[in-house]
Every structure is written in structure tokens, then in C-alpha cells.
């Protein structure tokens, strides 16, 4: 899909029970279940975004 639109693909976030549950609780999954697949997907996304905006740095943070 990103290819069709000639755009960088930043990654995918799964349809995941942890995300919906923690969102309803008001405790973002990244903080509350950092080892979950969902949280890891968001952390990876943060890296990808940071690298896009700072091409000179290899790793974020």
C-alpha cells in the first residue's frame, strides 16, 4: 500500500487486546505492558519516526 502511494512505510500496529484494554483504562500500553507486542511495535515506530527526521543519527534516544 505504501508502495502504491510512493511513501515510506513506518510500520504496522496489530489489532491487539492489550491496546484497547489499556486505552480504556487510561494507561497507555507502552507504559503499562512494555513487553507486549503492541508496546514494542510503538517503540519501533518511535525509532523509525526519529530516524526519518534525523537521518544522521543511527539510533534514537
Amino acid at each position, binding site marked *: *500500500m*505504501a508502495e502504491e*502511494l510512493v*511513501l*515510506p*512505510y*513506518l*510500520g*504496522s*500496529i*496489530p*489489532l*491487539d*487486546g*492489550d*491496546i484497547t484494554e489499556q*486505552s480504556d*483504562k*487510561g*494507561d*497507555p*500500553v*507502552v*507504559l503499562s505492558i512494555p513487553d507486549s*507486542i*503492541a*508496546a514494542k511495535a*510503538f*517503540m519501533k*515506530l*518511535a*525509532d*523509525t*519516526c*526519529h530516524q*526519518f*527526521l534525523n537521518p544522521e543519527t543511527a539510533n*534514537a*534516544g
Partner: protein
Amino acid sequence: MVVTGECRLLHTCEMCEFNNDTDCKADKNEHNRWIVNKRMNDIKFKLIIGSNKGGVGKSTVTTNLAVALAEKGFKVGLADADLHGPNIPKLMGADHVRLRATEEGIDPYETRNGLKVASLGFLIEDPNMHIAWRDAVKYDFIIELLGNIHWGELDYLLIDLPPGTGNEQITIIDFIGDIDGAIIVTTPQELALLDARKMISFARDSNVPIVGIIENMSTLTCQNCA
């Protein structure tokens, strides 16, 4: 706090370069541009997160992305521009928070890990009350969000857009002027892609660089599988 200017904006006279205590000549539009510009100058990367379509998870993705960036040690702000459905406070477990004004502006809510958040949800008493505002009022709110919130120095300001490519989006892009990137959120459905393509063309037409696409709700993870 004394408001002397024709601009009629609160909180800013003390810090405003137009202000000379008795005879401020700045008109409202001039002042709006000045105050937004002043705030945005302290922010390294200003990003908008949009999809055009509603319900694809913009706010959830934006919230978690903001939290993730803050966890990595960056100074991050999260501006909820969805004034008809300001969901960020609920997502952050901060629905009862109220913001306070100081001489520097309105202080955003700060989470335990240092993420600064501003949303209309913090200013509305009844969370079940709808917002029925015409464009002129929405325009003023966007300027409040960008200009009157005391964001301070940030590495990232993530702006969670409402659905659509209309008033709020145009106002944000117009006032900030040099947005560093747009992140497009979509889901795998053709319907979401149909709307996402319009968001992409809107960003391109507005000269906002596109960081890329996030595919949300892409695969189903099973809670009971190893």
C-alpha cells in the same frame, strides 16, 4: 494579570513584545501569528498525525507514539486538535485534570514520564457534552492550543488531527507554517485507504513533508496463543 491590548487575548500581555502596558497596538490576527510563532520556535519537530477518516486509531497511535518518544528521553508535547471528540485525556487516564493559567500561558498537563498534553477535554466540565462550534470558534481554539499553551522547549510536538481535511487542519498548517512532517494513519480496509489518499494529497498540496504511513489494526494478535 491585566489585558490591555486590542487583541483581547488573555495570559499573554506580560510576555508580549507589542505590549507597552497602556497602549498595545497589535490587532488580534497580528498577535495570534506572533504568539503561535513564538511558541513554535521553541519546538524542534512539529508533526501532524491524520487519516482523513475517523475511527482508524489516530488518537491511540498518537498517544502511544508520544509516550514512546518520551520514554526514549525526548521532550514531547501532545496537542489534541480533535475538538469534537477530544479523546486524549481519557486515553491518558487524565479525564479529570484541569489546566491552569499562569503569566506564561496555560500550563499543559504533564504525565509521570514528562509528556506534556493539552486538549479541549481538559477545559470542558461535562465529558458527555457535545461541542457544536462554527468555524470561527474552532479557529480561535486552534490558536489557543498552539499559541496560548505554554509548551516550552520540546523535541517533538505531535498534533492529533480530527478527521477530515478542513478548517482545523488548514488553520494548523497555516499558522505553524513549517510543519516538519505528516504521519498518515490508516487501516487495511479499502475504505480507509480511499480516505487516507485524500489526506496524502492534502499534505502534499499544503507542502507538508510526509514522514510515512502507519498501518493500524493490521493483524490480529491472539491473547491465548503462545
